[in-house]
């Protein structure tokens, strides 16, 4: 997706020192505990599904007659 990423910032001044390393560590730890709950799942044989995949179909098109559905 071209033009769809953060571009270099408009102001390139030197970043000030981070005075909140504790906050970052705390939130990272909370995220780790939350995501870690998924370890209870039996994922043996389960492959990643990065996105929903549409079934193979004919030529790409719109999703049917939307207006007609009304």
């Amino acid at each position, binding site marked *: *997706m*071209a*033009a*769809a*990423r*953060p*571009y*270099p*910032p*408009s*102001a*390139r*001044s030197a*970043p*000030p020192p*981070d005075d*909140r390393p504790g*906050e*970052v560590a705390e*939130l*990272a730890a*909370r*995220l*780790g505990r*939350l*995501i*870690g*709950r*998924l*370890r209870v*799942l039996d*994922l043996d044989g*389960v*492959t*990643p*599904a*990065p*996105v*929903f*995949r*549409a*079934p*193979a*179909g*004919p*030529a*790409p*098109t*719109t*999703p*049917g*007659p*939307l*207006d*007609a*559905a*009304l």
Partner: protein
Amino acid sequence: MQPFELTIEHAAAAIAARTLSPVELVDSVLDRCDAVERRLHAYVTVVADRARQDARRAEKEIRDGLHRGPLHGIPYGLKDLFDVSGIPTTASSRVWADRMPDGDSTVATRLAAAGAILIGKTHTHEFAYGLLTPQTANPWHADAIAGGSSGGSAVAVAAGSALFALGTDTGGSIRIPAALNGMVGLKPTYGLVSRHGVAPLAWSLDHVGPIARTVRDTATVLSALAGHDPADPASAAAPAHAPAAYPAGPRGLRGLRVGVPDTYYFDRVDPQVEAAVRETVELLRELGAAVTPVKLPLVEHMEATQWGLMAPEASAVHEETLRAAPHLYGPDIRLLLEAGSHVSALDYLRAQRTRSLISDAWIRLFGGVDVLIAPTSPITAARRGQETVRWPDGVTETVTDAYVRLSSPANITGFPALSLPVGTDSAGLPIGAQLIAAPFSESVLFRVGTVIEEQRTDTGGPADVPRTVAIHESSDS
């Protein structure tokens, strides 16, 4: 009735009948903008001169017999994540304070081809990483939040400073502000609408979709947006027809199978919200639908899966910029991005694999029902500055966690979900219900949503903004 108060359906009919010109309509919307923007701050940028020029062109085309369809001459807003050549895309962030795109997003191109007229770029929570949009006010109540991250888009439509707008939805960012502002919002099936030229938050969860005042209008806009785009790697080669079990045709709701979750979606929900949604369920039953309780699988893993996907993907999107200029991000976004960079690859892949389990289970679930109905969010618009929600069982959660809880399953699975208004609470704040269907079954959502909408008399119009107090007035004057 002023032109800005019209739905797309009625404005398009008037334009086609030559009883309303696009110039009149755009002037009316721009006048409305002037009247309410100081109070609401829905827009980052208003392109009035360009809009009037486009309106004159549309008027001439229609006069000359070139009518492009139902969006020809219809004014709209774009969340400020969407690129339009010559108009800044700021993502409501200092990081992109002066970023000028040199090309159009695919959806902007499609809407231009359909003859829609851009009014301006609407505010987002910074880079869409939040559900508040603090710059923008809720038009229904001065002390309530707009919701987000597509808060500016929902407020512009609710206030009458656009007839529709586009938003993005990574964890509920179209549906939540639509619900909080009394509008209709659609998160389409993943891959149905191109995201080319739209700033990402999390690639595997991001969706583009419309916000409008009615379900019919939402369907009209989706028709113009949907379609394969090779420029978006996730763009779907969708089946030509929606694989809906629910038969098409003017038969009311007879034959429709409605699933009502017996857990999760009604856990920790405000009683007024629950009552309004359950009244809507009863309405569907009275109209002939077969209503059955359903037990949703794996719901206890939704929050972990959403964060396990979103946090590292967002941190990856912003990795370079965050390293170069972290101080340009707002403190809440910076904290999320920095913390998200600590999520391990193993945890990320575990979230991906859990998504596989959830999606497979949901596909099986939709073998037995055509549509799920649930609250869009457990509470109406929170008060500005409110940080947490405390539930009767003693659990306290942040406002953001409360909002994302009911909307994220449709992002994780990629299934289409439509939010529509189903009432108001005792403070007059809108309540939204959410319809969820199988992939590419947007037509089912539109049919059911239209039936619900036709039973109500309090939807389809803009908010009565002048009655609200200007929350930003003191800082503006």
